């Protein structure tokens, strides 16, 4: 993925406006993804649902850098936990780390395949951590079946829609006003 070429704005007010607009758009997208991910029967194939919040976190992080990615991840995870069977904060912490890690690739030229592999790695981490903590360590019955019937379909479905999310976020980032996209560290 090629981050928007930094176009240095000399007017700090315009930079602030551009940043605010960008985060309003990303926030709205995260909210929409949350509603779609948790709404009954929305985007459902069989028993599988795409983990849109995670995919959005990965792809937003590729444009905004580690700090922005971490914040977007924490927000996405917090929303995810609201109506899930997990304790609030669980997915928030995982997505914060995932977003922060993916953000380090923001200044590199990430190609679609690499972004897809990154999304796959993020999915693997989230699903294995969730399964490990909430199924395996919790002593729930039939942990292998849970992995096979619940986590794997969700993961594969998410992986299938990951390119669409990548191109969509790419298009949104191109439409938004440009400024120094990935953070510099003071």
């Amino acid at each position: 993925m090629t981050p928007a070429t930094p176009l240095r704005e000399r007017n700090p007010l315009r930079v602030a406006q551009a940043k605010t607009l960008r985060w309003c758009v990303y926030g709205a997208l995260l909210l929409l993804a949350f509603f779609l991910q948790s709404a009954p029967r929305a985007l459902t194939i069989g028993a599988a649902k795409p983990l849109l919040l995670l995919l959005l976190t990965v792809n937003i992080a590729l444009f905004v850098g580690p700090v922005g990615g971490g914040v977007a991840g924490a927000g996405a995870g917090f929303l995810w936990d609201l109506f899930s069977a997990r304790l609030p904060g669980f997915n928030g912490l995982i997505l914060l780390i995932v977003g922060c890690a993916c953000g380090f690739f923001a200044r590199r030229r990430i190609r679609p395949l690499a972004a897809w592999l990154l999304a796959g790695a993020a999915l693997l981490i989230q699903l294995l951590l969730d399964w490990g903590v909430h199924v395996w360590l919790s002593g729930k019955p039939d942990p292998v079946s849970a992995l096979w019937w619940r986590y794997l379909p969700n993961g594969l479905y998410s992986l299938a829609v990951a390119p669409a999310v990548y191109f969509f976020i790419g298009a949104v980032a191109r439409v938004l006003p440009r400024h120094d996209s990935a953070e510099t560290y003071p």
Partner: protein
Amino acid sequence: MRTFCKSRGFKALLCLAAFLVGLLGYAAATRSGLLAGAVLSPLQSALSSATTGVGDFLGGLFSSSSALSEENAALRKELARLRTSQAELDELRRQNALYKSFLGVKVVHPDYEFAAARVIATDPAEGSGHVTVNAGTQSGVAVGNAVVTPDGLVGIVCEVGLNYAKIRTLLDPSLTLRACDSRTRADGLTGGTVALAQRGYLQLTRLDRAGAVAAGDLVLTYGGRYPEGLLLGEIESLSLDSDGLTKTALVRPFVDVRTVSEVLIITHFEGVTE
């Protein structure tokens, strides 16, 4: 990396992480819902009604081809009918029928106090084992309340917020309820496996081997913390456990948790025991 670790942004992220850890600890200690959930619940409720309609439509598209042609003809008739009727009237009719059936439950069990609710969210990681509904402490809902439809039990409230409640359904293999056979009163515990839950089934375990439980018998709640005599499902088959002392029954629930949209939460009943 070293520059990043010294940056203000990194420190802000650490603060955010500490906040989330604190939230985890608080939620683990209290099991109470968050204010943010109460704010987003009405929005989610509105969206879920829209997506349920779209889901029904798309579900029809993915059915088998022979069924599709039949469905196509039926849909054409339906379309002609819809042209002449108002969508709002249909919705009112549907709700009227639903509340009449709910009223039937109320007539049979006059001591029950209900809160009506609609399913607004599911959890991808839990499949049909967990749903969220749009009624909470405001409507008198509390943790441990039984959730039903006129067909039978749906699940048990496991967490409650101001205007939403999270429910563990019968298809959650870790939900254990004491239940009994309606004919012989032989009792056992509900449970199952994820594979069975995917097919929409659960198990009634630890049934006495010598008991006369048979396929076709109805399974009811036993009582105690939950109202007695709530319908769970019908026994389809029985098998002897490996210990040779107990039997396990395969139960088909009367309520299809995967498609249920309107529910009643029993907030109070006579003979409730803590």
